[in-house]
């Protein structure tokens, strides 16, 4: 439906444009908007399933089928030539195709881990799936948008469901608190974004990146606006100083939602942050961005060092990873250029989605099985009882720490090579030191898993859940595949 609105808006936006009809119903447009359309129809079907009594039973089928169709559409855009549609407000190319695949994967992972997680709210699982799918649609829209308005629609389509999902366990104090915190700060960020884009619009006279006249970029309005937009996006990707909400929300929200937030939201925000920064940020912002990146890495890593709750630890590590990715944004202004940065960020996020997705997913499983928060203590000696789970978790930790032969290493490698190439050598070195700090706490988890005896009186259920185990295994395979045989992925980006 959002697409319909956009069409309405753009049609009215410049009425003098002729042949709009042909354009809207052209092969190109349908291909470009395919994934989003598929998801939109999926949403409608899910609503229908809630209305028509019998359809309830088909809900899961509809969900999976929709993701499948959307994935197929996205797959078709990957090879295809770049398609700019709706007056250059929306683009579909290999990169956005891969981003879409990534969002679908994140959604699917979170959804699978969410099965049988909710007890009191099991009656509302229909709404849960519905909200998740609309959030996914929002991400797709965000990744493809090259226009401030379209992105805003996508952003809200993602955020509003997420507010609701974080507070999904209405009876749990923590869940509601997480939802409220996320909502209040998110709404603030949205307002900031709006005011920023209003200023940019005032300064440039357009909302579409392609239509911006470079001569206008220097103006005070545009710079102020760009700064505000950057701030709001930094909130979404949890960059210092907008990261305080992350640990609380991740800890409080239902674990599947946390999985979804940690992987999908961040990916979507970065998918737009790169082109937006390329279009709006002036060259001078390079060093500022680099500094923010370093501070973020520092805050995240040192924050994580002292955590005992695994969700919080992963949350802080997510902050640190956002900082690392911000290095790529900083390097954007340098020699390698936006495309290289986009590739690096995409690869990094791809690795991160499967790594963090798997890690959070396992936490989800343990949490729902033991019925209490998963801490460093509670996973002690897990390797003896659940070798498979422990091995997967250890692998994910190594990948988060960027040890070679995992996707995490190659992602970090690409980002740091960007920094080195755009002569941010010192920054890269400091970043390296910080990532050693990061290893310290990833190792703590592995130590607890393998090298410490089980705590008394805290039995870990010995049988894994078949489904969750399978998903975790798939994630592990992807992490290794991205680390060992990345050719198929990297080549398709060029």
């Amino acid at each position: 439906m959002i697409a319909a609105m956009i069409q309405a808006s753009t049609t009215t936006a410049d009425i003098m444009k002729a042949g709009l009809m042909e354009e809207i119903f052209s092969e190109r447009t349908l291909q470009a908007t395919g994934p989003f359309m598929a998801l939109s129809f999926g949403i409608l079907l899910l609503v229908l399933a809630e209305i028509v009594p019998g359809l309830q039973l088909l809900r899961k089928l509809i969900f999976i089928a929709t993701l499948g169709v959307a994935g197929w559409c996205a797959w078709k855009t990957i090879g295809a030539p770049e398609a700019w549609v709706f007056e250059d407000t929306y683009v579909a190319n290999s990169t956005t195709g891969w981003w879409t695949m990534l969002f679908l994967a994140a959604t699917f992972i979170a959804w699978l881990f969410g099965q049988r997680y909710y007890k009191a709210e099991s009656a509302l699982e229909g709404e849960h799936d519905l909200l998740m799918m609309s959030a996914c649609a929002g991400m797709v829209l965000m990744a493809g948008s090259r226009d401030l308005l379209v992105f805003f629609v996508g952003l809200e389509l993602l955020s509003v469901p997420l507010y609701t999902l974080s507070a999904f366990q209405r009876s749990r104090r923590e869940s509601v608190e997480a939802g409220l915190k996320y909502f209040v700060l998110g709404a603030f960020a949205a307002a900031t974004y709006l005011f920023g884009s209003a200023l940019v619009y005032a300064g440039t006279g357009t909302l579409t990146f392609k239509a911006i006249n470079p001569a206008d970029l220097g103006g005070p309005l545009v710079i102020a606006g760009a700064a505000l937009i950057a701030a709001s996006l930094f909130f979404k990707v949890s960059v210092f100083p907008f990261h305080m909400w992350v640990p609380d929300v991740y800890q409080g929200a239902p674990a599947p939602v946390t999985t979804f937030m940690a992987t999908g939201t961040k990916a979507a925000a970065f998918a737009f942050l790169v082109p937006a920064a390329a279009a709006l940020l002036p060259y001078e912002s390079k060093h500022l961005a680099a500094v923010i990146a370093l501070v973020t890495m520092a805050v995240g890593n040192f924050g994580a060092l002292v955590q005992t709750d695994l969700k919080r630890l992963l949350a802080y590590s997510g902050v640190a990873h956002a900082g690392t990715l911000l290095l790529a944004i900083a390097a954007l202004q340098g020699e390698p250029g936006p495309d290289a940065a986009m590739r690096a960020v995409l690869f990094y996020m791809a690795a991160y989605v499967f790594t963090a997705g798997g890690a959070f997913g396992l936490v989800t499983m343990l949490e729902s099985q033991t019925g209490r928060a998963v801490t460093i203590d509670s996973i002690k000696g897990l390797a003896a009882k659940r070798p498979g789970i422990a091995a997967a978790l250890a692998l994910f930790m190594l990948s988060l720490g960027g040890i070679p032969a995992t996707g995490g290493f190659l992602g970090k490698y690409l980002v740091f090579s960007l920094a080195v190439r755009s002569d941010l050598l010192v920054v890269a070195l400091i970043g390296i030191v910080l990532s050693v700090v990061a290893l310290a706490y990833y190792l703590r988890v592995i130590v607890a898993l393998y090298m410490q005896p089980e705590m008394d009186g805290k039995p870990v259920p010995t049988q894994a859940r078949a489904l969750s185990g399978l998903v975790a295994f798939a994630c592990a395979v992807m992490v290794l595949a991205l680390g060992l045989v990345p050719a198929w992925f990297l080549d398709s980006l060029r």
Partner: protein
Amino acid sequence: MLADYVPILLLVGVALGFALLNNALSELFGRKRKNIGKADAYECGMEPRGSARIRLSIHFYLIAVLFILFDVEAVFLFLWAVSAEALRAQDMAMLVLYEIGVFVFVLVLALAYVWRKGGLEWDR
């Protein structure tokens, strides 16, 4: 430039002055008789009973929120309304009609959902 605003300022000044003046005058010259009838809250002649802070049923808020949502969605029809003429000028009227149709269909679906979930039932 800013001088353009002087009339507005004057208007504000006059309004304030008038109100204050009248109050001050009545304070000065009005004669004051105090009794209970004047002291307590005025409610259309009948004396108030019960606390003013009674809790309303949650459904009240629910209906209100739903109303706001569906009401505000109507705003998108304005776009259509204002540009209908120009759209017909370049025979895209039908296209946009379809689009609005899709849009309204979605709203109807949402309404049906709310209905099905009992959001509209008052006594429950």
